[in-house]
């Protein structure tokens, strides 16, 4: 058994007996699992204690992105793949460079998802409402949308002063994420990139 990390689509209706949860995990049989939702976006970051067979089953799904078991490996030649797997899920990926390890990548995922979770809990809003992408400029958001993000920054005691009208959503999220303290999931610490 080993703790492995995955990006997994969200399923469920949110009802008590049909909660929002990662796809595939109902039948995975993992002995322990921790998951973090991306607010109202349709993805989860999952840490699961799995056997080799369970890992093969989960990672074999085309809509699942699996992190390597050794999180201390540098992204290296997989840089383009890592960036595209993140960006395909509306997770900022352009900040990742080849010398980053997967612990850095996981921190980036965890931090953005944490902010999105706060945003949803406070305002019941999602970051990527219709037409909004990572490259949308803050000036192109509605005042309400900007206020939602600023409210989260205030609640988390993050410095929002660097966000201006010409800041992209990608840059704003990155600025806020870089102020969050490093955390981890299921005993695996994440690393914040410089």
């Amino acid at each position: 058994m080993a703790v492995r990390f995955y990006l997994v689509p969200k399923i469920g209706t949110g009802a008590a007996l049909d909660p929002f949860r990662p796809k595939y995990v109902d039948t995975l049989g993992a002995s322990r699992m921790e998951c973090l939702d991306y607010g109202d976006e349709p993805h989860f970051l999952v840490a699961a204690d799995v056997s080799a067979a369970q890992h093969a089953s989960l990672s074999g799904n085309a809509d699942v992105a699996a992190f390597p078991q050794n999180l201390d490996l540098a992204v290296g030649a997989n840089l383009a793949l890592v960036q595209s797997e993140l960006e395909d899920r509306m997770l900022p990926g352009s900040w990742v460079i080849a010398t980053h390890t997967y612990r850095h990548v996981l921190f980036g995922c965890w931090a953005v998802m944490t902010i999105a979770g706060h945003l949803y809990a406070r305002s019941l809003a999602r970051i990527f409402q219709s037409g909004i992408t990572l490259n949308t400029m803050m000036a192109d958001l509605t005042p309400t949308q900007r206020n939602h993000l600023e409210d989260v920054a205030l609640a988390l005691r993050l410095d929002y002063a660097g966000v201006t009208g010409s800041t992209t959503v990608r840059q704003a999220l990155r600025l806020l994420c870089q102020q969050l303290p490093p955390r981890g999931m299921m005993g695996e610490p994440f690393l914040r990139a410089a």
Partner: protein
Amino acid sequence: MEFVRDSFTDTDGTLLDAHTGESGATWTRHSSSGAGKDYEITDANRIRPDNAAGEAIYYSSGLPASAEYDVSADVVFLGSVSSGYAVGVHGRQQPVEDSHYRLYVNEGSGGQWLFSKRVAGATTALGSFQQSFSPSTTYRATLVLRDAAKVCLVNGVPRISSTDNAITEAGRAGVVCNTGTDFTSDSVGPQLDNLLASDVSGKPHINVLRPAPFAPGIAR
């Protein structure tokens, strides 16, 4: 400092919101609860879901000093029922909004403890731990609520952790159930007993977060 204590000692069949426990334990049925769905006192002085289908959420009158506190209860597993269910405790329950963190049991997928958050009526899974439940066995379930981490203990052993802190208000502690119509007597399913909620002040709470397998990154 404890702010809720209830051994659920009362007349068999008493509805939970008509019962008063030892301290901080006058119970309010949350407005989001399903019509006709209740917790009731059993003949063994525990509480069990009644046999109506749906969800019931109760919060206690005790007020926590902050949003960082523990909620624990005995989960007495008597025997299997056929349908899926959720029976457990919650914390940070907002008296108006339908938002809280909950730790509960479900026999689905071979038996498991589940930790989830409820935000404005929508439930999101945050973690799970597989465990098959033995008939006539009592498990102590503890939900440890800290801003930096939520930890779920079963019989004192950390089994689920989460860094989610989307619900930050202290709210209240209480109990929750969501079942089908097969909780037909005092002798089936899981029941709850000896609920206790306590603030972190005056207790070495950090030790709760320290044991393996959780790394320092989780506990900070």
